[in-house]
């Protein structure tokens, strides 16, 4: 009886048996960590007693007064904004350039795909070598045309380190935008363009008045997907600068990770990662509302 009942439930029209494995793994791996993080943010590891102790709101007060936290928040936003603008503008320009059926263009689009499959940690190492002050090819070129002082290594100078990391980021993810925008451009209907041609519109006018508005949904989705990843940047800064020099490339994720694993401040690390999570959730959901992105 029981077995038959269970069997009927499994093959019924009820969505629960289909969703159960997904719900189980999401509960265990996202809801539980969330609760654990909240609990941990009110505790701290005390090395002297080798135990976690309740500290009340101490971590949150510390967060509020921690200049390094505010600094890393500013750095994360700066990184996010600069990378997003560069990737969007370059991505759109290159997509417009590659939007052609001419000979070899399919091959070129395929080559651009390559950057997306390289582990970001390895991309970080690639640029670490290329930006090496002595034998790095980027440093060499910049030094020979006088743009870079040989005494100021790109990644070891506070004013240029973030730019050095951003170069790797923008190199790897601009093709992501190119591919998405290309798909959007290819799906556009030809009629508005024909009408505009007859009216004698300039190509900039056509782009501004026809292409951009019709591409708004595509752009919004690209911004959302890329923006989420930009805000949790970790790999590049971890392998290229470890947050330095000073604190000039500390992203929120890196700061949270180091507090937990390098400085054994478990409670404070959890507090920092909670804050990172909340900021992403709030901004992303606001964006979804405003840009009316739908799945």
């Amino acid at each position: 009886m029981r077995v038959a009942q269970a069997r009927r439930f499994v093959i019924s029209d009820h969505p629960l048996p289909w969703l159960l494995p997904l719900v189980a793994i999401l509960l265990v791996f996202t809801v539980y960590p969330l609760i654990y993080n909240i609990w941990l943010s009110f505790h701290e590891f005390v090395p002297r007693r080798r135990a976690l102790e309740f500290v009340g709101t101490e971590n949150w007060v510390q967060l509020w007064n921690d200049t390094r936290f505010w600094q890393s928040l500013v750095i994360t936003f700066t990184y996010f904004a600069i990378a997003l603008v560069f990737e969007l503008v370059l991505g759109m320009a290159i997509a417009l350039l590659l939007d052609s059926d001419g000979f070899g263009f399919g091959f070129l689009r395929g080559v651009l795909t390559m950057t997306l499959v390289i582990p970001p940690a390895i991309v970080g190492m690639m640029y670490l070598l290329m930006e090496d002050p002595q034998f790095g090819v980027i440093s060499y070129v910049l030094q020979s045309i006088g743009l870079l002082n040989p005494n100021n290594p790109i990644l070891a100078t506070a004013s240029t380190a973030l730019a050095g990391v951003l170069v790797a980021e923008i190199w790897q993810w601009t093709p992501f935008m190119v591919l998405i925008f290309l798909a959007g451009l290819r799906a556009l209907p030809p009629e508005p363009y024909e009408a505009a041609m007859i009216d004698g519109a300039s190509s900039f006018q056509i782009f501004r008045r026809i292409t951009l508005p019709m591409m708004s949904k595509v752009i919004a989705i690209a911004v959302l997907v890329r923006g989420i990843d930009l805000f949790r940047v970790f790999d590049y800064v971890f392998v290229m600068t470890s947050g330095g020099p000073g604190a000039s490339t500390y992203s929120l994720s890196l700061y949270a990770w180091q507090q937990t694993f390098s400085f054994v401040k478990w409670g404070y690390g959890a507090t920092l990662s909670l804050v990172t999570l909340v900021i992403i959730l709030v901004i992303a959901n606001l964006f979804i509302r405003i840009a009316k992105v739908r799945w």
Partner: protein
Amino acid sequence: MNGSYSTRMLRTIAAWLVVAVFFFPIYYWTSVAFKHGNDIFNRPPKLFAFTPTFDNFQKVFGISLGSGGITVTPGGGNFYMAPRVWDSIVIATLSTVLAVAIATLAAYALSRMNFRGRHSFVGWVLSTRMMPPVAVAVPMFFIYKSFGLIDTYTGMVLIHALMNLPLAVLLMKSFFDDIPSEIDESAIVDGASRFMIFRRIVLPMAKGGIAATAVLCFIFSWTEFLFALTLTTTSVKTVPVVSSTFVTSIGTAWGNMAALGAASIIPAFIFILLVQKHLVRGLTMGSLKQ
């Protein structure tokens, strides 16, 4: 747009130049993999004129190209990385299977069944994609520690499957949405159960979509860094994590690292070319169709 011959020519040249700029770092990195140490540490950097060597690959993969063809010598050297490549393959493959299996079931329900809260459920799945890995890794580290899952395949497979679930669910849902639901309905009229329809009709029709989803899950697991860094120590390690350990106190083993890096992107690149048709849909988690 079809301009004159000269504008078409100009556009072609510009396109090749731009792509060449993007390709250059990959070329340079690959060239480092074939360089002797003193060719890497040369100023000005050597781009083309160097004597190629297979030493780096030999050290990293234990494979040498001698006079008698290819010989394999599994060494115990510090830079022998073949077992780490194996770790990466096992974790990426198993986590992909797990994620795709769970996601396909859930996506079918989300695409075909009407139930209360379906829309917010999709929203919840999407919002788990927004969690910063560090916010998951810190608690998971302590949980894994108490369950003995640190440094195990099981632990890595589970966390990578989780990481890929939002993408896989939303992507598979978009592929199922493409299949007209009239097919399901007529099969129900004929007396088929939900599961039979799913297995016999819908799954075979969504084969291409499943392949594309699997490839993307594989690549995201293959390239993932933070979880692998946090939740493994010695016996299990993935390629991105060991690459960062090539930086030692006596300098960085660039040649070996480049050999590992260059070799590791080849399988991923081949995979992604196979599903190029669905790539954009995958990169946007199913919200844009090509």
